[in-house]
């Protein structure tokens, strides 16, 4: 691996950059591996990297049906935060945020983690109560999250309309300063390059078609479009396609896949300094380094693998954006796209062992998987290396749907009255 640095960049400039090698060599699958990761998104590539880097398992393949980073990794709005309510969630997401910090240096790849702050707006008394509950819990968990008055919100994000006459007046906000964004493609590429340098084979355009299990029920290997690969440790990190892969191993999963849309505006000069989320108005926005306003839209109501959503979702999203940021009605929508998000009954992930020996799973991240990328990768790697979950991901088991120990962050913010 040729090191990336400003020095090398300047050096290469004098020979027209002809010395840069491939980020990751294209590999044909070997007959067997010590571990296989199904799905080359940020989570799967991260798992491969940490298996090799932290847990000493380097004979690893990442198998991807399309091109790496082409699923939700390359389709999300890149929000990073960890100010979750429950201990289980706060520990899980903060584990990731700690890894985000320094990830560029760790991977020798600038993934552009930008701690510009994530501001969540409270629009009614219930929001205020709920956010305060988060802030107090976060503080005692060692996770930063602070309350801002409407005026402080406005100072932090000037395009915000804090007039009390709006339909949903801003009553304050919860700010996590360590929250922010990172460059999604770079995360996938950085992990792929670093994993590859440690000996991991990255095999694209190779769909898994079956999971072979031995007489004892344990995993023996995977069937792929490019032949059978023997392996006794298979980690599935396939997001919206997880149900399908799990069925190959004979497992039915508590998952449903929904279309989720996002969109960007044309680029403009810096106008929007942070990430703002408003659950009540249903608006999520940041501005990319390129200058595009990056806007998360909602999920459609029905399950689908079409990567295509309905237009009225976009209508409602932009109405919401312009309600809280009224300066943007003349901005123009440049591109919309859709992803497939896998959602569990409690909207928290499943990360750990499965009833099949040697088969591990990382799925169910819903609309919030990007922020967890380094943490999910590390914890999946840990679980595969030890055949036991780490204490951080132990609560994210499948049993919780049977015994009722759900981790339902959304329910905790439930509105009734």
């Amino acid at each position, binding site marked *: 691996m040729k090191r990336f640095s400003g020095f090398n960049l300047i050096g290469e400039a004098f020979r027209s950059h002809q010395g840069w090698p491939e980020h990751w060599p294209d590999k044909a699958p070997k007959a067997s591996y010590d571990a296989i990761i199904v799905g080359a998104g940020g989570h799967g590539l991260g798992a491969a990297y940490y298996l090799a880097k932290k847990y000493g398992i380097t004979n690893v393949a990442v198998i991807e049906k399309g091109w790496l980073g082409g699923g939700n990794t390359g389709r999300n709005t890149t929000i990073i935060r960890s100010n979750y309510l429950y201990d289980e969630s706060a520990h899980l997401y903060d584990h990731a945020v700690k890894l985000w910090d320094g990830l560029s240096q760790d991977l020798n790849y600038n993934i552009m983690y930008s701690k510009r702050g994530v501001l969540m707006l409270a629009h009614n008394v219930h929001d205020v109560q709920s956010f305060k509950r988060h802030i107090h819990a976060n503080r005692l968990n060692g996770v930063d999250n602070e309350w801002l008055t409407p005026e402080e919100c406005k100072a932090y994000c000037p395009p915000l309309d804090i007039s009390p006459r709006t339909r949903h007046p801003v009553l304050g906000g919860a700010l996590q300063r360590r929250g922010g964004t990172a460059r999604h493609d770079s995360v996938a590429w950085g992990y792929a390059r670093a994993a590859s340098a440690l000996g991991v084979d990255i095999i694209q355009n190779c769909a898994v078609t079956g999971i072979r299990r031995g007489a004892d029920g344990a995993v023996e290997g995977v069937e792929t479009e490019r032949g059978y690969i023997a392996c006794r440790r298979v980690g599935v990190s396939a997001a919206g*396609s997880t*149900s*399908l892969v799990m069925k190959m191993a004979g497992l*039915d*999963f*508590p*998952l*449903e*896949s929904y279309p989720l849309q996002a969109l960007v505006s044309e680029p403009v000069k810096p106008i929007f300094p942070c990430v703002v989320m408003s659950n009540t108005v249903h608006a999520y926005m940041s501005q990319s380094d390129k200058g595009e306003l990056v806007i998360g839209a909602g999920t459609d*109501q*029905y*399950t*689908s*693998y*079409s990567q*295509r959503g*309905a*237009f*009225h979702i976009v209508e409602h999203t932009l109405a919401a954006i312009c309600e809280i940021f009224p300066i943007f009605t003349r901005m123009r929508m440049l591109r919309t796209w859709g992803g497939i998000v896998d959602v569990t*009954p409690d909207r928290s992930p499943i990360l750990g062992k499965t009833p099949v020996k040697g088969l591990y799973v990382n799925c169910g991240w819903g609309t919030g998987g990007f922020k967890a990328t380094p943490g999910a990768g590390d914890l999946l790697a840990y679980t595969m290396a030890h055949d036991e979950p780490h204490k951080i991901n132990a609560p994210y088991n499948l049993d919780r*749907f*049977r*015994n009722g120990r759900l981790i339902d962050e959304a329910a905790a913010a439930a509105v009734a009255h």
Partner: protein
Amino acid sequence: MLLIHCPYCEEARPEVEFVYGGEAHIARPVDPSTYSDEQWEEFLYIRSNPRGRHHERWRHTHGCGRFFNAVRDTVTDVFETTYKAGEARK
């Protein structure tokens, strides 16, 4: 916006009149107390989530108000058919 044929109204109507109701043909047991924890988990949470033909429920909430079933291809989102609640799986 999908166009959904309501089997009660016998008309194709815009999606915004409808509310999706999840996977179809998952009947609540007559006596849930006889279900084991595993069976109850399956009833509550396990879903087929197929890529392709999906049996699902919709309610024509802002129309005739009725729940009905549909078969839709989850790759193309094209409806194969819709039929009244209580009719056999198609």
